[in-house]
Structures are given as C-alpha cells and as structure tokens.
C-alpha cells in the first residue's frame, strides 16, 4: 500500500478528492482536537486526497464523534440526508461506539442508533494515525487488522501464574 495507490482509489471512487464533514454529537472535543491535527503539517491529510469541508452538501464522508445526544439526533439525520451519495459514515471514538455513555438517558449511546455506520474507529481519542488508518479503511485501500488480533499476550516471564 502506497500513498499513490490510495490517491488512485480516491480518484476513482470520488473524483480525485474525498471531502470530509465532521459532526460533533456531544463529544468532549478531544476527538475534534485529534481530527484537527490531521490537517497539521505532520499528518497532512491533503497529501492523500482527503479534505475537510464545512458543508454537508459537499461532503462524501461524515466523520461522527460523540455519543449522539438525543436533542442532536434530528440534526444528525438532516446532515446525513443533505449529503450526496455515495456517502460514508465513520463513527469515531469510544463514545460513538457505545463505550462511555451506553445507558445515559440524554444520549442514544451509540451513533449506530441514528445513522447507518460504515466504519468504526475505536480509541479515546483515536490518534491521528488511527484516524488515517480508518479513512484508508473507509475508502477500501488499507486492510483491517483487528480480525486477526487476539488481544492476548504471552505469559509474563517473571510472574507466577494465577496471581491476578
């Protein structure tokens, strides 16, 4: 996988550039800080053909953060409906995936409850590298790795078993 290949896919699917609209549905703004860093020189999102846009009408990808506050759900639906197809919805961060406010009465708890999610990016917050990987997965050029990760580790060399 090279940046050239990624650029090629974006070019084929979305006419050279994929425009991202971010949607904050009640997050603590740390996800937004990480998303903002994508545009900074170190990560430089634009080199891969991704751009931020302020208008849902111009967006191909909806980057949703936060646990989907109930009062915000109509606005989120309107944003989704305002986007032209084909469109991708990416749920970003542990809140959006149902981790932090699963049973809070003022939130839906997950983004899936309101919008059809295509890609899930875990992390609290997901680092800019994780977001870049998620965007690569969203356009279908970076491989998903979690399926093969067992999240188990070999035994600690110095500790005896059964002491947890």
């Amino acid at each position, binding site marked *: 996988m090279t940046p050239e290949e990624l650029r090629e896919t974006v070019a084929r699917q979305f006419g050279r550039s994929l425009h991202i609209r971010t949607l904050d549905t009640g997050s603590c703004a740390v996800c937004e800080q990480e998303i903002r860093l994508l545009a900074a020189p170190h990560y430089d999102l634009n080199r891969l053909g991704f751009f931020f846009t302020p208008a849902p009408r111009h967006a191909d990808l909806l980057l949703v953060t936060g646990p989907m506050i109930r009062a915000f759900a109509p606005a989120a639906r309107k944003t989704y409906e305002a986007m032209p197809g084909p469109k991708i919805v990416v749920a970003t961060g542990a809140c959006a995936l149902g981790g932090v406010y699963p049973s809070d009465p003022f939130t839906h708890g997950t983004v899936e409850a309101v919008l059809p999610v295509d890609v899930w990016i875990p992390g609290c917050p997901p680092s800019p590298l994780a977001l870049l990987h998620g965007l690569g997965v969203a356009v279908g050029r*970076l491989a998903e790795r979690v399926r093969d990760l067992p*999240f188990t580790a070999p*035994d600690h060399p110095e500790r005896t078993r059964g002491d947890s």
Partner: protein
Amino acid sequence: MTQWFLRGIRRGVVTTRYPARADKSARFLPTPPAFRPNTLTRQGADRLAAVCPSGALRREDSALIYDVGRCTACGRCAAEAPAAVTSSGEFELAVTVRSVLIKRIPLQGEPR
C-alpha cells in the same frame, strides 16, 4: 532566519510517511490492553469487569469478553491486575464490521 532555513533543508520534511511506512511516534500512543489467558481466573476476570469504567469487559462463563470499541485505554485494568494485563501496542483498529471488535479471551488460569 537563515540558520532556521538551512536547518529545515538539512533535516528534511516533518510530514509522516504513515500509510506507506510506519510512523516512529506510534510507539508512544496509549493502546488498548492485551490479556494473558494463563494468568486470568474467573475471580480475576470479574474484578477486571468491575473496575472497567466504560463497560468494555465482562465475563461469560470461562471467557473474558473484551469489546475493543468501548475501551478507552485508561489503564485501570492494568493497574488492577498488572500480572494479567499488558499493553497491546496496536492502534490500527478501524473496522467495517462492528462485531469484529468484540474479542473472546479464554480464562486458562483456573486451578485444575
């Protein structure tokens, strides 16, 4: 100003090569935990589930169900059972199927 300009040329660009090459800063990221199945008992798994603030851990019979999507990598499970929990070092966790993020970790620390 001239010095700054020359140093900038000498040391090259700051932009990461990430999708093509690994980024050196990735090892400093807080990453979700990985568990040592041989060290985990049922009681230990229950304690980990109780200490998890985001509900990412629960026990189901003789397995620890770990929802990576819910995990905030806060490290409380690692503080509770340092022998059984370590850092996974994985940050490329994006998926297109939500259920892939839910991992089943067998508890093999049972006395037999």
